[in-house]
């Protein structure tokens, strides 16, 4: 199992002048997985990613990248890494081709394969027509793409993207999302964002950071399936006890006017059976709404409650 992991970090801690920015974070990333790192601004996302990328040394903890220790063998470890920092590290005065050629050399792509590698990175990022243009003249979205192209030009095992969608317009946003989705086919990816929907759109697994700690780490599929809440409207409905006795029903709440809020047993989808039962018993079903899985409110709860307590103590 350990050998399948492209990246594993244990007990990462980072202190800045007495302030603990990142506190005991474990990250494990399997091949082909997309991990979304989510958290409000200042939660420690960038610090964590910089440590994983080797540009910041952790105060404590250990990072293994494709089996190489980042502290003991940084050069071998960094060979397997592509990194897009918060701000794309591009040189305005160079053309896209010149810049990518430098990055390919820097990342140790062999001379013979360099041309093909650059073409492939450009094709992946939709930069085919911009090779001869100066990076400084490109729009923010295209500069971001150049930044991503730089990170994938050497086909790394692990791709770290720090807020790849920050400051983009909706069209560019969709473009980058699709790009990350495509990249996930051949790379393990860590994406960070402070916007939940960005993570939901691309990630398989979500990790929520708050004040330097992991407050949630689970697969998005699980997060989606959990806590199914259904609003049902029955004009000739039964009483609470009848509903509560139905299979798969955890709790029933009366919303008045013949409407009920039913919480399903975690992991079960009871919408079908519920509708069938209602029709079968002639309860006169008029409404059946499943709430979208509420990662958003959980995100808000997880990151707000602690914030408030801190605000009170400080």
């Amino acid at each position, binding site marked *: 199992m350990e050998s399948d992991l492209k990246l594993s970090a244990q007990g990462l801690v980072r202190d800045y002048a007495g302030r603990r920015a990142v506190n005991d974070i474990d990250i494990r990333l399997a091949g082909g997985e997309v991990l979304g790192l989510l958290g409000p601004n200042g939660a420690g996302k960038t610090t964590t990613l910089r440590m994983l990328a080797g540009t910041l040394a952790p105060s404590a903890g250990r990072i293994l990248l494709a089996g190489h220790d980042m502290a003991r063998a940084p050069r071998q470890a960094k060979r397997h890494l592509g990194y897009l920092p918060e701000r794309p590290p591009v040189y305005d005065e160079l053309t896209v081709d010149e810049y990518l050629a430098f990055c390919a050399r*820097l990342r140790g792509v062999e001379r013979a394969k360099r041309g093909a590698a650059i073409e492939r990175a450009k094709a992946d990022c939709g930069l085919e027509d911009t090779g001869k243009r100066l990076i400084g003249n490109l729009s923010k979205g295209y500069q971001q793409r150049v930044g991503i192209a730089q990170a994938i030009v050497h086909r790394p095992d692990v791709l770290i993207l720090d807020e790849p969608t920050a400051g983009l317009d909706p069209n560019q946003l969709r473009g980058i999302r699709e790009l990350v989705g495509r990249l996930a086919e051949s790379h393990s990816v860590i994406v960070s964002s402070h916007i939940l929907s960005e993570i939901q759109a691309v990630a398989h697994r979500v990790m929520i950071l708050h004040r330097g700690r992991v407050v949630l780490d689970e697969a998005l599929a699980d997060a989606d399936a959990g806590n199914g809440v259904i609003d049902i409207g029955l004009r000739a409905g039964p009483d609470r006890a009848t509903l509560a006795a139905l299979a798969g029903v955890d709790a029933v709440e009366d919303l008045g006017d013949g409407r009920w809020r039913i919480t399903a047993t975690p992991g079960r989808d009871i919408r079908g059976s519920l509708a069938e039962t209602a029709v079968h018993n002639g309860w006169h079903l008029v409404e059946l709404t499943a709430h979208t899985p509420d990662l958003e409110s959980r995100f808000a709860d997880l990151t707000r409650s602690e914030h408030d307590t801190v605000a009170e103590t400080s």
Partner: protein
Amino acid sequence: MSLTLSIARHELRRLFVSPLAWTLLAVSQLLTGILFAMSLTDLSLNPQRIGAYDGVSAIVGGGLFRFATVVLLLVVPLLTMRVFAEERKTGNIELLLSAPASLTAVVLGKFVGLMGYLTLLFALIAIMPLSLAFATPLDMGLLASGLIGLWLVMAAFCALGLFLSSLTREPTLAAVATLGALMLLWLFYAVSTMDWQPVVLGTALPLGEAARALSLIGHHDALLRGVFSSADLLYFLIFTLCFLALTVVRLDMDRH
């Protein structure tokens, strides 16, 4: 090694696509050119200045190289400020730090790139006195020693500038600090020319001698006079390597 060269090439390319590099070349060429023409004119009007020991090579060449050092004082800070301070400000340094390159390779690459540029500047300055070979016999040994000295001064200035650039994230601050430090080196030499021997506890301190031994310009002066000693050479080598090593240490501290 190849990484160092890649970084050096990249640095050179960035320099030559920017107007700053060309402007600096043009301005320093204009200044040194005017001084060269002036000293030639002066010499042709007052030929009696050529004595038994000071020939054309010493008067024109030596004067030109001394003046070139002053020009370098202004040029080098503007070059080195771009390297680490500006890259830190734009965040581009992350690209280098996340690459599979050692910090030594990064610093050496930057240094070699800048020296490539300065060597071009050096060649343009060197051509001027050497062109006199068509008109008059030159003391090639003296000129060669002066040119080697000039190149070593470039390397030393450049290393010091790189180090100061690695200390900050404000390019202008790096430039001002480098200018100040280089000026201080200059002043240091002035101390050595003063006949000042303060007496402390009954012993005369050879301050002038000490300043001369430490001063970068003092060692350059010996080379300009045609005295090529390994001590001067070693001084420049150690000075340059020291500041390059300090730069590596400073960049490593960034990660911690």
